[in-house]
């Protein structure tokens, strides 16, 4: 005979299992219902459901977007807004599958690495036609009556929002991003002494690096002055070379736009005509400054990822680290010490006898640093609501709210940066940058192939220039040819688009028709001008 407790236990087990199964099935049915309802209608009850997806998983960012969504829902009770934070690791695959399956959310954070032009044209709404009108949510603010486009920091022309091939805007930013140097305040006080002021100039920066190394050696615990990595290192070098060749703009800027763009051939035309060479004093000086900065970083830093550099800093093994402002909140949160912002990587001043000959002053930061942009899906069930929410989220008041909660830099003009982050603000009192040497991929590859000569303890500028010089002309040609080939492809595609817009009578389509013609002529002028010199 089986004991009673066993029989009871068996029925109890069955009951629990049954309940569990019922619960699971109910949850499954509810979830399925919700998903089916969302996918098919975008409406729950009498409310329209709007979803927006992004890859920023930090708590303050999610809270910032949530606050904006709640404010919108308070004004529009017929709308429900759902936020979908997706990890960056799976984001590319996730976006692709959503696009393929036709389930892409109403608004999506955009980056050209993840969404190709063909998808952009097919699956997202061109925004150019809406940017000329004022944003109605700016009423009663300093931006009342200002065209939507001009309400952002900068004019959106240089950023990733405008697609040159499709000749339109496809996304609008919610934040601004700038690369700044951060430092360990406690370590700094130990190294530089109590009451010491953080370095402002290039020379002071190099002196602090020397002191840091000496302090580490004295403590028997090596300390790296600047925690470097591959991409931040390239950024730093790019900035130094651009800043220390500013005075060369005048002689190379044939079309008087004060910008040396490699796509329009400025560096190539000048190099071919002998207007500049790697042996010019300005270039040599820039390379010397790159070497000086490189020596403040750990050996092999150009092979490291940024995470490793940040880890070195957080462990107290490095005094300073370059970090983008949108990652600053994380850095401060993770650090067990007080973190300060130093500002931009110091540049030699124009009067610096060793490094300053090509500098006019700080390099101005225009509007190309706006970030975290959202695009509107053309498959949205409520595109007019999605567009309206984008207007709302990029209004003066909502960007103020988002900035306050997320601690990010504002994307909207006139919105105050978060307290204590004034160092992230764009540099306005500055001059245009000089030669964009490292913006060119083949030149950059040649530069990096010989970089060991420049950065070696016993290396130097001369050996580096001799090696780079041999590859310079072919590299300049290769980069320009590649740029021209891309433009030729865009020109061909524009040909197929012009009548498609000419065939309809709407004012937005008419504007796009004209814009395509103008942009194509601009690109065609460039292509044949460049080819006349390349061939």
């Amino acid at each position, binding site marked *: 005979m089986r004991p009673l407790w066993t029989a009871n236990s068996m029925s109890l087990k069955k009951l629990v299992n049954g309940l569990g199964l019922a619960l699971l099935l109910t949850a499954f049915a509810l979830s399925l219902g919700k998903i089916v309802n969302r996918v098919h209608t975008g409406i729950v009850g009498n409310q329209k459901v709007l979803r927006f997806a992004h890859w920023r998983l930090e708590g303050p960012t999610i809270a910032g977007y949530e606050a904006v969504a709640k404010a919108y829902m308070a004004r529009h009770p017929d709308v429900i807004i759902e936020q979908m934070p997706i990890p960056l690791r799976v984001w590319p695959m996730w976006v692709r599958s959503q696009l393929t399956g036709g389930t892409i959310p109403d608004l999506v954070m955009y980056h050209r690495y993840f969404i190709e032009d063909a998808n952009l044209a*097919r699956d997202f709404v061109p925004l150019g036609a809406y940017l000329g009108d004022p944003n109605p949510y700016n009423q009663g603010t300093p931006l009342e009556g200002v065209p939507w486009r001009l309400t952002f920091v900068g004019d959106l*022309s240089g950023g990733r929002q405008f697609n040159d091939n499709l000749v339109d805007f496809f996304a609008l930013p919610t934040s601004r991003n700038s690369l700044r140097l951060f430092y360990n305040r406690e370590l700094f006080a130990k190294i530089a002494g109590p009451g010491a002021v953080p370095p402002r100039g290039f020379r002071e920066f190099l002196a602090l690096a020397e002191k840091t190394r000496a302090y580490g050696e004295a403590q028997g615990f090596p300390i790296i002055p600047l925690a470097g990595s591959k991409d931040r290192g390239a950024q730093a070098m790019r900035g130094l070379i651009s800043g220390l060749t500013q005075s060369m703009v005048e002689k190379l800027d*044939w*079309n008087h736009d004060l910008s040396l763009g490699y796509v329009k051939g400025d560096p190539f035309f000048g190099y071919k005509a002998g207007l500049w060479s790697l042996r010019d004093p300005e270039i040599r000086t820039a390379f010397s400054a790159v070497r000086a900065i490189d020596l403040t970083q750990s050996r092999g830093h150009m092979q490291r990822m940024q995470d490793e550099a940040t880890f070195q800093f957080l462990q107290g093994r490095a005094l300073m680290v370059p970090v983008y402002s949108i990652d600053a909140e994380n850095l401060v949160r993770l650090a067990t010490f007080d973190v300060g912002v130093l500002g931009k990587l110091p540049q030699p001043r124009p009067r610096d006898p060793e490094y300053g000959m090509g500098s006019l002053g700080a390099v101005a930061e225009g509007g190309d640093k706006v970030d975290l942009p959202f695009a509107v899906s053309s498959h949205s069930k409520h595109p*007019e609501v999605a567009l309206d929410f984008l207007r709302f989220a990029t209004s003066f008041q909502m960007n103020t709210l988002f900035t306050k909660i997320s601690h990010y830099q504002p994307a909207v003009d006139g919105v105050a940066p978060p307290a204590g982050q004034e160092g992230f603000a764009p540099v306005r009192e500055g001059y*245009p940058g000089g030669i964009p040497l490292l913006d060119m991929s083949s030149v950059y590859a040649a530069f990096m192939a010989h970089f060991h000569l420049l950065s070696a303890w016993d290396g130097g500028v001369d050996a580096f220039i001799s090696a780079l010089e041999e590859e310079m002309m072919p590299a300049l040609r290769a980069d320009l040819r590649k740029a021209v080939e891309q433009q030729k492809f865009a020109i061909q595609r524009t*040909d197929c688009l012009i009548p498609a817009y000419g065939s309809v009578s709407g004012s*937005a389509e008419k504007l796009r028709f004209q814009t395509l013609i103008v942009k194509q*002529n601009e690109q065609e002028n460039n292509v*044949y001008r460049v080819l006349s010199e390349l061939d």
Partner: protein
Amino acid sequence: MFPADHEIHCLSEPDGRRFLTSLVLALSLAILSGVPETRADSLDEAWTLARKLNFSAANAMLDGLEPVATGDRERINFARALTLLGVQPRSARKVEEAYRLFGKVVDSGISGEILPWAIYYRARIDQAHRADPDFARAAEQYRSLVQGFPAQVPAQVGFVKLAILRLYVLQEGVSRAAVLADLESASAFLNIPVALRDYHATMADAYLFYDLDKEKALVHLIKAHEQGSLTIIDTGGQMARIGNLAYHLKRWDIAKQYYREFIETNPDAGTVYLLRERLTEIETADASIVDRQ
């Protein structure tokens, strides 16, 4: 571009109703399969697909389309040719077929804008779509457009294309200065703003690129600016260029005017600080002249 409210409601029909509707529609289509769909709807839909860069679907849709009214055949051929040019992967066969289809439109002698557009696109294929471009033939067709249809958009835009070819590609055995002068005298017929703007912009660039005449470049830049700017692609760069060129030519009044306008409308631009300095320099020089007087 956006669906109206009633369309949104249609999209959110209950599934059962949608299924029934689909069934009825499918049956109706099956019964009516012998009747061609309306040409205008299909053409519109093909252009809509083309605007979304879905050239393959647009072209496939046009392939079986039968003409109904007069002029339909040419309009369909034109759209087929154009969408075929956009289908990837590109091939010489597709390009030739597109050229042939545009040729059929040209040979039909159809009236209206479609004829000059077809000539224009044959020129575009010769210039920009063939693996081995035929620039001379393209130029010849642009010239025929200018002669035959001077008031039409494709002829005026074609003139700009011709100018670009003559300035940078074709070897005419005369100096670039002579080509520029010839283009200036031939441009009097231009009256469509977008073509005028691009013509003047092209001329200004060429004068500067060949370092021929900065004064003439300045005049052309100003004329291009007067045609209006498409702010989507130009947020004042043209104003800044006029100011900079005028500054170098010591044309202080022009420099002041355009620098002021640029700074006022583009306060965040990366060049503003430098341009403010230059403006102050000019204004200070003005003041000292007034003081001396």
